[in-house]
């Protein structure tokens, strides 16, 4: 049932007065402002939580954010329901609500002492995705819900795994070789989708191996570079990293290739603490980009679509132009949920979901979303800074860079800030592989945070013991010497 029929049916129930029609209008019109205000408050708290260290105050903020999230989710679902009077939407609402409540209870239980703001953000982004996908097509929402619920459940085992396998950092070579094999698998049994050959179809499921190798790649680089940053080692690791990137380039998966490349350069820079690697990396990257532009027509197409989509609006510039139409027509406050035409933008449910959000919920909402993503990144980095073990520190850093750089590529791409590379907006965009790998990414960082917290306590106890044991140790050494 479309919107008009729904309004008609409502007014039928309430007689000639058109009360329902009016209520519907009022709700749709006011709801978009209310949603923006609630989300702005939510975003505000993403940053105020950094200020001060009063635990009670922080706890209050976590709670408030949670209620803000539930409210936004409820209002959006209500609007979606009134737009269609589809009972399925109501059912979806309750399933999603159950999922959100369950996750926000279960995670802190398993991840003892996790970053709750980060958990809130993860769920808020997932909820935004559910709403937009429910609006764009119920099919997308169903699948997204299944994937998100499954992976969140599975992720509850991550802290256990991290604790169990303390030798995670000894497996650098294994990660590298597994990653390369998985990426190369696409050449053998891969399928092409949206111009990039980076999908594997298993039965009903389409998998994007690069999404999973992303995590292995960080583990590999962190593990091997944590051990040594001697020139020889750096050279060896760089060759392996380059193989990853080159395979992705060969698959025409430019977005993933860029993400891998930048992530590696940053990990190398932090591990070695040598700016020359950063400089060399960017220089090599620039040379490679220029070469790619001259060699590959699909790279040229992207650049043309970016520099002047209007003259190529029928072909290359189509997506970007329509994305800008959506964002521009939506304006600061959006057309209202269900009131726009996000379907006019190709793949609005995945790579271009940011423009769909801006069109219907408003560019102001979109800007808040960007701030929420940045706050996620800052929390990631905070965790990385606190890490004691080098492997964890580098891994947390690598995962944060992967996450934020992907956000940059997708939002920059759909707003014509940079050429579009066709990557998803983590947690919000439709896509099983993307959601699964991002939830894993969030969970691993949370897991490391929790583990580090345990270790810090342990260290503190050890410090105390140290002074007492000091003399005895020295004596021992003299004896064995």
């Amino acid at each position, binding site marked *: 049932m479309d919107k008009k029929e729904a309004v008609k049916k409502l007014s039928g129930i309430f007689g000639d007065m058109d009360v329902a029609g009016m209520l519907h209008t*009022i709700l749709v019109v006011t709801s978009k402002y209310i949603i923006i205000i609630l989300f702005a408050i939510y975003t505000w708290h993403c940053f105020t939580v950094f200020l001060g260290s009063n635990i009670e105050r922080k706890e209050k903020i976590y709670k408030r954010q949670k209620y803000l999230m539930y409210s936004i989710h409820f209002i959006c679902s209500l609007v979606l329901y009134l737009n269609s009077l589809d009972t399925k939407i109501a059912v979806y609402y309750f399933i999603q609500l159950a999922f959100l409540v369950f996750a926000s209870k279960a995670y802190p239980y398993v991840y003892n002492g996790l970053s709750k703001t980060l958990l809130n953000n993860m769920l808020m982004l997932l909820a935004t995705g559910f709403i937009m996908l429910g609006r764009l097509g119920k099919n997308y929402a169903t699948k997204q819900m299944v994937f998100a619920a499954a992976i969140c459940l599975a992720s509850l085992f991550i802290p256990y795994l991290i604790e169990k396998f303390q030798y995670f950092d000894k497996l650098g070579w294994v990660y590298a070789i597994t990653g390369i094999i998985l990426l190369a698998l696409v050449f053998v049994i891969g399928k092409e989708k949206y111009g990039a050959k980076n999908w594997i179809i298993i039965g009903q499921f389409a998998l994007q191996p690069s999404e999973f190798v992303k995590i292995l790649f960080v583990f590999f680089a962190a593990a091997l570079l944590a051990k040594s940053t001697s020139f020889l080692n750096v050279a060896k690791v760089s060759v392996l990293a380059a193989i990853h990137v080159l395979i992705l380039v060969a698959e025409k998966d430019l977005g993933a290739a860029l993400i891998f490349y930048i992530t590696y350069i940053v990990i190398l820079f932090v591990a070695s603490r040598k700016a020359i690697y950063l400089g060399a990396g960017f220089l090599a990257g620039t040379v490679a980009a220029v070469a790619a532009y001259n060699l590959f027509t699909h790279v040229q197409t992207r650049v043309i679509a970016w520099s002047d989509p209007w003259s190529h609006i029928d072909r290359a510039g189509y997506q970007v132009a329509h994305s800008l139409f959506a964002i521009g*027509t939506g304006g600061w406050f959006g057309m209202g949920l269900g009131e*726009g035409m996000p379907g006019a933008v190709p793949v609005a449910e995945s790579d271009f979901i940011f423009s769909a959000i801006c069109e219907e919920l408003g560019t102001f909402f979109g800007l808040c979303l*960007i701030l929420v993503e940045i706050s996620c990144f800052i929390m990631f980095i905070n965790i990385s800074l606190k890490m004691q073990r080098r492997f964890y520190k580098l891994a947390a850093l690598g995962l944060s860079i992967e996450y934020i750089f992907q956000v*940059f590529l997708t939002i920059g791409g759909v707003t014509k*800030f940079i050429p579009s590379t066709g990557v998803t907006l983590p947690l919000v965009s439709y896509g099983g592989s993307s959601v699964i790998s991002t939830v894993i990414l969030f969970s691993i960082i949370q897991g490391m945070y929790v583990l580090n917290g345990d270790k810090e306590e342990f260290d503190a106890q050890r410090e105390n013991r140290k002074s007492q044991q000091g003399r005895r140790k020295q004596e021992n050494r003299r004896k064995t010497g």
Partner: protein
Amino acid sequence: MYGEEPGINSIKDASAGRRGNAQIIMVTYAVVIVFMCMAGYIVYFMVNDSSEVINNPYNKRRNILAERIVRGSIYSSDGKVLAKTVTDSSGTEKRVYPYNDIFCHVTGRTANSMTGVELSQCYPLLTSHSNPLKQLAVTFRGEKNLGDDVYTTLDAGLQQVAYNALGNYKGAVVALEPSTGKILAMVSKPGYNPNTVEDDWDTLVEDENSQSALVNRATQGLYPPGSTFKVLTAIEYILENRSSFRKYSYKCKGSESFEGNVINCYGNEEHGGLDLSHSLAKSCNASFANIGMSLDINSFRKLCNKFMFNQKLPVKFEYNQSKFLLDKKSGTDEIMQTVIGQGKTTITPLQNAMIAATIANNGEMMLPYVTDHTQNETGQVVKTYEPVSNGNIIDKETADIIGKYMMSVVEDGTASSLSSFSYKVAGKTGSAEFDSEGTSHAWFIGYAPAKKPKIAVSIVLEGAGTGSQHAVPVAKEMFQNYLGS
């Protein structure tokens, strides 16, 4: 074994744990800065570019906006309604055009694929800039908000005069304000009635009598320029012979030939001894063929390209590019034909008006535009469109000289009937032959008052005959209307 001693290990850990943190913080700052730039860019896009960007025929959201907004009205510069939306008691909206076909091409239509101002200002017309709270209240009442109104640069009186003066001829008239590029009038005949275009559509498209009523001849019609093109030939000659052009002299015997190719003067008239000024005033083909053969074709082509032949025009309406095709390889016959405005050169009336306006404006070309400003329902101006210069095409001195020559066309040449005004007029007639029987399109380009030009016109009447007889009278009525006698 010793490495596992807790004491040593924890000292190492403490420093190792912070190693690299300075670099991580550096990277974090870089990321945050990049994101701030991106957010700033998005804000900039929303504030500055978005209204321009969304007003694109490829943006299919206008139907959604039309459900919320009553399309605004289009006005002439003197406040006459050119298009408005009327809602009847049952709530059905109808777009009404009070002037029927007089403004049909320039104002355009909303039905059967949008055109004209209706198209170029589609989103502004469907956007309301009235008080947001008032808008909210209106929405709550279940009513539609009123879209912004568009004020054009068109002068309704002048447009009507031009429309009537064309009579039953097919043809077009463009009038520009030389100092700004404002389009004062733009008529194309035959037109169609935009009020009934939906019902008439099939007839209009079938076009059994080859009327091409849907085409805006003023911007899309490509005609041979005839003798009006001699203005450009003369300019090129002046530029190439800065020191000697005043000494140019030629003795016309009614025809001229080069390498066996003959050019005749109109009616084989012998013009006798001529300088450059009189060659233009008398529109002497023989003299211009003589001039043309001396020109550097490459340089001429460059000049024409500067005058926007073969170029995309940065304007907001449908148009065709005027063509100038001479190059080094062109033969003598083609050169001789082209310099007098025949040959393969084709020009739109708009382009010819731009040439006249550029000369009138001391050599600086202003880009033509038709939207003056938009305003909300209470009359507050939302956006004003400023004149845009397309640069100095020729220097002021050359513009003055060619202007004087064009005045002599009026004083003792082919447009002498325009000399009766209290102010001086500059112009050039043309009679462009387009078939072997010698029928010609009547052309006139010119501007007035010559001292301080306020209006430049370009007029073409298809198959009417000579410019002097048919196009000049149209110009006369327009000058009379716009400037008085």
